[in-house]
């Protein structure tokens, strides 16, 4: 049976150097449930060490966590990678780390904290997660698709690190599955702003970097259940699946 799911497919944890320290897995899950979200995708910058703890915390709770990552391309375009299984995310992670130079400077960029499902600090990620990989955007999308995931262009309406700011427009050879709109803009306004992108699916997410951001942006989607396949059907408006845009 088809029903409505409140989906926020872009939330950071305290692993992202720019996110608040109070974005540890348990706090993030609890706030998401309070905000009545049905689905969240956890997408840290170029990293994913906290995802396994979020998956374990979500077990038995009225929320589904999708393993994800926000990857930075060579062109400094941010793209969300969304998967059904942690194993595929881990494969993407290996590719990303092979192509991500540099070490983090906590005093400049912020701490990158790995926190487990018992609220304990497991350690720090030492890599320069705020940096960019040396992988062209099209290659990253290709790897995501080969691993069975979905590629969503991050916050296309923002003046930095978006496909439109970096590369001016979206050419048809860059096969994003959907385009993300910031909560501040919203889908309705984005549809007016970008008539040339009318063929693309738009989703709204919070891009939450702090607890109070959770719930501020999500998309209601009509799905049968939560899976990458169902999301893809909704992005393509097939078999009754769709993204509700009239909010």
């Amino acid at each position, binding site marked *: 049976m088809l029903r409505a799911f409140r989906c926020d497919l872009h939330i950071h944890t305290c692993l992202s150097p720019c996110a608040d320290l109070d974005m540890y897995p348990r706090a993030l899950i609890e706030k998401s449930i309070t905000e009545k979200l049905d689905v969240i995708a956890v997408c840290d910058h170029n990293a994913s060490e906290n995802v396994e703890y979020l998956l374990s915390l979500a077990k038995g709770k009225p929320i589904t966590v999708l393993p994800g990552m926000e990857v930075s391309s060579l*062109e400094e375009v941010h793209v969300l990678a969304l998967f059904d299984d942690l194993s595929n995310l881990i494969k993407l992670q290996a590719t990303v780390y092979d192509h991500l130079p540099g070490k983090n400077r906590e005093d400049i960029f912020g701490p990158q904290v790995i926190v487990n499902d018992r609220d304990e600090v497991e350690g720090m990620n030492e890599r320069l997660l705020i940096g960019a990989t040396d992988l062209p955007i*099209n290659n990253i999308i290709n790897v995501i698709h080969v691993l069975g995931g979905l590629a969503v262009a991050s916050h296309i309406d923002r003046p930095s690190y978006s496909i439109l*700011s*970096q*590369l*001016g*427009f979206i*050419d048809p050879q860059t096969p994003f599955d959907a385009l993300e709109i910031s909560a501040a803009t919203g889908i309705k306004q984005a549809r007016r702003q970008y008539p040339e992108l009318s063929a693309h699916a738009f989703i709204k997410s919070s891009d939450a970097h702090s607890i109070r951001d959770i719930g501020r942006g999500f998309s209601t989607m009509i799905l049968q259940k939560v899976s990458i396949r169902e999301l893809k059907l909704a992005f393509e408006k097939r078999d009754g699946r769709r993204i509700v845009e009239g909010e």
Partner: protein
Amino acid sequence: MNLETIVRLLDLKVFSGLDKLKTEVLDGYTGDLLSDVMANSKEGDIWMTRQVHQNIIAVASLKDHAGIILVHGAEPAKDTLEKAMKENIPVMGTNLSGFELAGRIYNILKGKKDNAAVDL
């Protein structure tokens, strides 16, 4: 001042558009954010960038740029080069940094030719 003169003075590598080097260069523009280049560059500009994605060809074509110079040893991606050849857009390259290149081209275009030649 045409492209050919600039190529010769700065010893640029020419990746594509060899037959369009007589194109007149009116001014220059530097930028790696294509949204900015689309909004602010002008017809006849020589565009200096580190961006090698194929969208640069469409932007140069749309804005009627004289050509594109890739800085700091960057080379066009394979699909970028194919598109440049198909659309016959001059794409050149240099080992100079963006700062060095822009300075030299500024001097060439604005008349201080003494400082322009490559003294490598």
